[in-house]
């Protein structure tokens, strides 16, 4: 145990929340945190404890364990219980309307909840001494225009790809026939070996619009595109290529900037 660590074990009751807050406020003072940051600390710990009091135990409150360990520039806080894990609660009346976790998220550097059915839960929070930066107003650096996915080669590829492609085709208002065609094309991609792909994962991106899907398979290694194109030819002079339009292999680069190729095609309803 570190010399400077605060440990509290107490019954998980609403009445004890105030005790926990006073304890962490004292710790915040000892660490010389500014008043507003002490207030944040009280909020963060309170909300983590609320989850224990509200969700961990049924009738008789069990223990709530709070530890706080000051480190370089930040506190590591842990709130744990020995209950049955978080359960969804329908009685919204007493619940915090889902504001608790967002408050923890907004005022801490990172937080993590672990646990599961029939085991206790644990909320671990990294809380920096400096106030949080609210300048990120939730605007992403760039807006993704397409869905990108990568799947480890194996049993997962076909069912996942078929369902995603099917869902996108349905959203693009494809007829049932064309939807089936699209899934067939997805199956062809699924049968492609991982070694054809640049990083060993079956990767593709799909841009969907009303009436059409634009599929870009890759990044693939050199020759991977042609190989996949060859696999579109079925025995008996049937080609899956006919189900799509503009199917071709295009040169390009991996996100890391290495040379790669893509098989690109378009499916319309």
């Amino acid at each position, binding site marked *: 145990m570190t010399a400077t660590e605060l440990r509290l074990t107490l019954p998980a*009751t*609403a*009445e004890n*929340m*105030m005790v926990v*807050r006073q304890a962490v406020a004292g710790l915040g003072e000892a660490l010389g945190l500014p008043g*507003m940051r002490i*207030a*944040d600390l*009280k*909020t963060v710990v*309170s*909300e983590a404890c*609320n989850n224990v*009091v*509200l969700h961990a135990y049924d009738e008789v409150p069990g223990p709530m364990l709070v530890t706080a360990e000051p480190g370089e520039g930040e506190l590591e806080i842990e709130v744990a219980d020995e209950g049955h894990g978080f359960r969804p609660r329908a009685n919204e*009346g*007493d*619940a*915090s*309307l889902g*504001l*608790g976790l*967002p*408050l923890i998220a*907004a*005022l801490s550097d990172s937080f993590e909840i672990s646990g599961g059915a029939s085991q206790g839960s644990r909320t671990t929070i990294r809380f920096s001494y400096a106030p949080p930066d609210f300048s990120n107003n939730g605007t992403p650096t760039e807006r993704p225009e397409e869905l990108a996915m990568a799947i480890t080669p194996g049993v997962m590829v076909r069912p996942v790809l078929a369902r995603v492609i099917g869902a996108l085709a349905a959203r693009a208002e494809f007829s049932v026939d064309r939807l089936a065609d699209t899934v067939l094309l997805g199956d062809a991609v699924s049968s492609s070996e991982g070694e054809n792909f640049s990083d060993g994962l079956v990767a593709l991106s799909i841009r969907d619009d009303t009436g059409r899907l634009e599929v870009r398979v890759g990044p693939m290694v050199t020759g991977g595109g042609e190989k996949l194109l060859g696999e579109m030819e079925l025995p008996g002079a049937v080609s899956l290529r006919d189900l799509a339009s503009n199917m071709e292999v295009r040169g390009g680069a991996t996100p890391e900037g290495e040379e790669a190729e893509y098989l690109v095609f378009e499916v319309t309803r």
Partner: protein
Amino acid sequence: MLTISGEHDLSTAPNLRRRLDSLLDEGAETVIDLSPATFVDSSILGVILDGRRRAADKSVGFAVVHSNGADAVDRVLEVTGLRAELPVHARREDALAAVSGNTGPPA
């Protein structure tokens, strides 16, 4: 007028809910003054939001005041977006005007 002072959390939320419910049951226009409060948690915010919903259902005036500037309670109202959402008035007069239907400028 319901004035909330000191620290409030899960342990006091049921009591606050009862007081608020009885005001709304009477159909009284309600102003919650959070200015003297030193701490409120998400359960208290939940009670306030429920109160606002009930007031709206009954078409009864409902407003929240916090005139303390940047303190711990203000921080929570800010971070949750409730200061703008409720809205929270910075002056008691504005809140009173808001509940009487004579809506002043928001806080």
